[in-house]
């Protein structure tokens, strides 16, 4: 009896780590687009990058409950880090990713201390402020960043010394997809680890998390730093595959878009960012080809309808793709964003 329960426990805990068919299918389809959709590789590349960016936001929003309207700070820093590196002759893409991740992680670590306190609104505005200040900084330091004209003259070397970026965007897309996939696998592994579980517990109830002996602040700092590094990599991918960086990598709309993408796809199950990115970009592409002037209206209408129809119900259904995930994932139904009120008891 005892060992029976133990087996069940092990199985139940292990289930969270196992891949479901839906997930495998998702990535197989993604891989298939490399072969079957050669004309769409450019936008697919952008989708992969935004997906990764949204995934990084999901790490802090979905798994740690930190809302951010300034996530572009890390994206932009990563883009500039990779861009400036390549401009100065160090064109190895993977090295660029590493440097971008590091730079963004450092910024993430430093600024994480600003978002440990305060309500959601405060966090939104502090993160936003950080991104805006960084944007101004990039504008002022035009000797380094090219200012408002953008950073030009980026020439990328071949990936691993083998694959040169091509004009069809195929290599770029493959590169972004592989990087996104690898980082996704790591993120997926992290969220089912004891560490990931402790993050979810902090998001759900920081008061209890402390009472279980979890060093809440340290965990939050760690995940914020990690998410920053992810966002930095996403930015670096954009800089490397478009070989251009302009100030709008740091702009407010970047942060707002990624938030939209993530929320559309659903928060807290890692696929939300990816699915949201596909949905949002394809929609935008189709609509803006149809009516280049007024596509925003239709996007807006869809957002409104999506919310009225019950966004969470829709994404819940998608979540069922992942085994047992429905259970493990807090849908914040009828509950405002994870708030800090519990901590203020």
């Amino acid at each position, binding site marked *: 009896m005892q060992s029976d329960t133990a087996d069940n426990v092990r199985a139940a805990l292990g289930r969270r780590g196992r891949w479901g068919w839906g997930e495998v299918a998702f990535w197989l389809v993604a891989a298939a687009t490399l072969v079957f959709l050669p004309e769409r590789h450019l936008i697919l590349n952008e989708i992969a990058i935004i997906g990764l960016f949204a995934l990084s936001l999901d790490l802090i929003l979905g798994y740690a409950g930190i809302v951010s309207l300034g996530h572009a700070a890390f994206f932009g820093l990563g883009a500039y880090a990779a861009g400036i590196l390549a401009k100065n002759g160090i064109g190895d893409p993977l090295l660029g990713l590493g440097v971008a991740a590091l730079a963004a992680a450092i910024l993430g670590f430093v600024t994480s201390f600003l978002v440990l306190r305060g309500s959601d*609104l*405060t966090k939104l*505005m*502090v993160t936003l402020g950080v991104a805006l200040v960084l944007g101004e900084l990039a504008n002022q330091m035009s000797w380094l960043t090219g200012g408002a004209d953008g950073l030009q003259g980026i020439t990328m070397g071949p990936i691993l010394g083998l694959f040169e970026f091509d004009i069809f965007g195929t290599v770029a897309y493959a590169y972004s997809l592989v990087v996104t996939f690898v980082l996704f696998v790591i993120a997926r592994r992290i969220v089912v680890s004891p560490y990931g579980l402790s993050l979810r517990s902090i998001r759900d109830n920081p008061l209890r998390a402390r009472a279980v002996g979890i060093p809440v602040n340290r965990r939050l700092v760690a995940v914020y730093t990690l998410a920053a590094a992810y966002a930095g990599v996403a930015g670096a991918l954009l800089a490397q595959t478009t070989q251009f960086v302009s100030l709008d990598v740091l702009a407010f709309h970047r942060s707002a878009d990624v938030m939209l993408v993530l*929320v559309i796809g659903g928060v807290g199950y890692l696929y939300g960012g990816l699915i949201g990115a596909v949905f949002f970009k394809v929609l935008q592409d189709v609509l803006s080809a149809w009516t280049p002037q007024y596509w*925003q209206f239709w*996007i*807006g209408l869809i957002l*409104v309808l999506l919310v009225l129809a019950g966004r969470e119900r829709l994404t819940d259904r998608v979540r069922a793709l992942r085994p047992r995930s429905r259970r493990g994932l807090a849908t914040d139904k009828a509950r405002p964003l994870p708030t800090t009120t519990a901590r203020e008891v």
Partner: protein
Amino acid sequence: MLTILFDGIAYGMLLFVLACGLAVTLGLMNFVNLAHGAFAMAGGYVTAVLMNRYGVPFLLTLPLAFLVPALAGLVLERTLYKQLYTRSHLDQVLFSIGLVFMAVAAVDYAMGSQQQMIRIPTWLQGRVEILGIQVGLYRSFIIAVCGVLVVALQFILTKTRFGSRLRAAVDDPRVARGLGINVSVIFAATFAVGSGLAGLGGALGAEILGLDPTFPLKFMIYFLIVVTVGGTTSITGPFLASLLLGIADVAGKYYVPSLGAFVIYTLMIVVLVLRPQGLFARAR
């Protein structure tokens, strides 16, 4: 020097009128309405259309710049917003951003994407010297109008029955309902007034801030700054924050033009890190 102070106050007052509706919906009703700027834009366009197409005098357009957005606010509140009071903040953000997109595109479609001009009457143009300070007439006008509004709002919120009912409704809607207060009517009225004020602010501010379809997006950040820095527990908080922000912005650009844009954002971060509930919030 004093002229800078004066300009800063006028700018701050304007920000307050634009943002106070947001302070109410966000602070009191706990609803994140990013579409607030769209109501401000509506007010601005009402004034622009009335003046430029129908030759209505500037002052006469102002009441309409209040009423039209207020009515729009009321209708939207009754039909859409009220369904979302209990939803998560993320839903509210998604929804209201969707409204902004629609508003931007719709105005673009109806009015074109170019800047709208409002010709203020000649008696409001130019400057006079008061006590040795050069003051712009129009800015004085803004200060006067906004000042009256601030006093009136404060009065309504603290001294009238409506104000106490609103506060009761906000503190605990269930208890308020138990006391026989019609909470949904109170919320609807508050929302409408907030939207109307934004519209009025949009009309008054068109001259200084400009007016084009991207207005709601451009100024969203400013509104949010005012509300968060001011704290959301009272109306005086956002008011003082607006003034502070207005003066800091103008003075920052005057004295350290190369750092101009940093001033506001840095100020905001510092304030929020030191006082996460806002500068002027009561401790909860």
